């Protein structure tokens, strides 16, 4: 329905329908005969991107967050980090390729980096279970969080997952308790934790690595209690009402900032992060740099993270 078949024209397969006019201008830039034409088309592209993206519906945000071309965790780490040494295994049951972790170097310092990798090619997606971690993945993350604390390294978590894996083996190995243990561990982890929601922040599967001092979220990412399709199915027995659910659930970064559950919105380059991953990675790098500068200036305390989460929620006192 929303997928158009513009693959051959724009070079970007799976363009979303509302991206069609942007893709057409991009094609003109590519084929421009003169620098003048190119500059004119470039200006038009910026205008058109702004026009289209200024009135995105919540459901279109969902589509963008899941965009086939959206940069993945490893697209960010390769740009953000000078080096990354991946580490494997939860030291108990196995290694989970959906959840990547290791030691990264960022502007002359070491970090522990953990995140979900959805995969790009079909083979990689299957290998990485579409970025849906098993308990082994959450336990690998926990092991790396603890390593970071022992060695005094800041933690960076990069969130991009539809959900924690729903499956027989995941249940047998304690998916719920594994996520719970991470939440608990992050509320007491005595080292700075920076979190970025890159694309999809899917429920407990996302939160299991997202209890950060500073939670930044890309402008067109989503962060949900439950996928809108499933929300519509549960509440109204009709997954087709997903667009209504996407609006009602308040899934966008701007809305979540207002609700006080994230700390910052990271602006994306015109047309979305997938049209310029380098620029998106630069935005993330600057945000991380600002966070680490604050840490260096002594502005980090564990208590602030604990109090931030303690305050979250909105209720009424009828007394």
């Amino acid at each position, binding site marked *: 329905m929303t997928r158009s078949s513009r693959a051959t024209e724009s070079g970007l397969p799976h363009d979303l329908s509302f991206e069609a006019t942007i893709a057409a201008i991009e094609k003109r830039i590519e084929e421009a005969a003169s620098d003048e034409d190119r500059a004119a088309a470039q200006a038009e592209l910026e205008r058109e991107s702004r026009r289209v993206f200024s009135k995105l519906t919540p459901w279109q945000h969902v589509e963008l967050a899941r965009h086939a071309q959206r940069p993945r965790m490893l697209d960010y780490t390769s740009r953000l980090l000078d080096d990354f040494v991946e580490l494997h295994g939860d030291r108990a049951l196995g290694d989970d390729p959906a959840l990547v972790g290791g030691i990264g170097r960022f502007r002359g310092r070491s970090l522990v980096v953990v995140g979900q990798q959805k995969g790009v090619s079909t083979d990689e997606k299957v290998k990485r279970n579409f970025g849906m971690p098993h308990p082994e993945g959450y336990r690998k993350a926990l092991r790396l969080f603890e390593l970071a604390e022992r060695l005094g390294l800041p933690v960076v978590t990069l969130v991009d997952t539809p959900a*924690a894996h*729903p*499956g*027989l083996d*995941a*249940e*047998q*190995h*304690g*998916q*719920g*308790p594994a*996520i*719970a*243990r991470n*939440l*608990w561990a*992050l*509320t*007491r982890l005595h080292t700075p934790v920076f979190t970025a929601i890159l694309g999809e922040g899917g*429920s*407990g599967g996302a*939160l*299991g690595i997202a*209890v950060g001092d500073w939670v930044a979220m890309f402008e067109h990412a989503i*962060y*949900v*209690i*439950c996928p809108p399709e*499933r*929300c519509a199915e*549960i*509440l*109204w027995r009709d997954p087709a*009402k997903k667009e*209504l659910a996407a*609006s*009602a*659930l*308040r*899934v966008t970064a701007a809305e*979540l900032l207002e*609700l006080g*559950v994230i700390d910052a919105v990271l602006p994306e380059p015109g047309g979305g992060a997938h049209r310029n991953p380098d620029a998106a990675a630069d935005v993330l790098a600057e945000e991380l740099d600002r966070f680490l500068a604050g840490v260096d200036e002594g502005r980090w305390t564990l208590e602030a993270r*604990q109090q931030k*989460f*303690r305050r*979250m*929620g*909105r*209720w*009424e*006192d*009828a*007394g």
Partner: protein
Amino acid sequence: MAFLKRRRFISVIGRKSAVPPGVWMKCAGCNQPVIRTEVGANQWVCPRCNYHLRITARRRIQYLVDPDSFQETHGTIVSADPLGFSVDEVNYSYRERVKKAKEKTGLNEAMITGFGRIESTRTVLALMDFSFRGGSMGSAVGEKFCRAVDDAVRERLPVVLFAASGGARMEEGLLSLVQMAKTADAVRRINEARLPYIAVLTDPTTGGVYASFASLADIILAEPGAHIGFAGPRLIESALKVELPEGFQSAEYQFRNGFVDRIVNRTELRPLLGKLLRYLSTP
């Protein structure tokens, strides 16, 4: 599928109002007719087959706490509608649903908190009630649990949780999700105060409640046959296109896999909790 069949029966006899006020009722576990008053006198456990019916938080208190020792706390904390979750197209209003839940259950929220004595040991209690919006956790439930924990830390009392929940409350969106972190942080405070925390997982304990404070207790007990797990069985079936094995995500399954300390019959919970609280409070 056995699991779904079982659930259907529960919806028939689990809700009191749906049961005709007869002398006999049909047990969902053994499908046999049983005398209603006998089941009731046995804390709503089938005397024939030990099937544990779902019960309300108020009944729990009655079965568990020393007479007249329960003092409810934070009862005025109620759900707001922080997202303005009303969808005219499908005629759905969260505010309306909460109002109806209050009328139906006589409760203000899906969790009751308070102080009470269990076999003489003063305890902070948090009891969830599945009949209030499926025991779902929104901002109010999260806040109540946190305040109950604050009470326990301040007065140096143990915490006992009775979990019964379908998971996080959808209509408060991400505010519900972050209650998982908030309640996990509350458990941290119990731990750092070196106070005991015991959770009893009852039917059902799933989703965001299971993946946060309910599975973080020092001691985890479960009622026989309780459904306990993270992902819903229907979701797993549709995602994996498999039929789930008999007894999947039952209390017994979780016990076998090492996630539950003991499976305890409802009628034996009070003496066991009383003993554990005594042993852990006066080492």
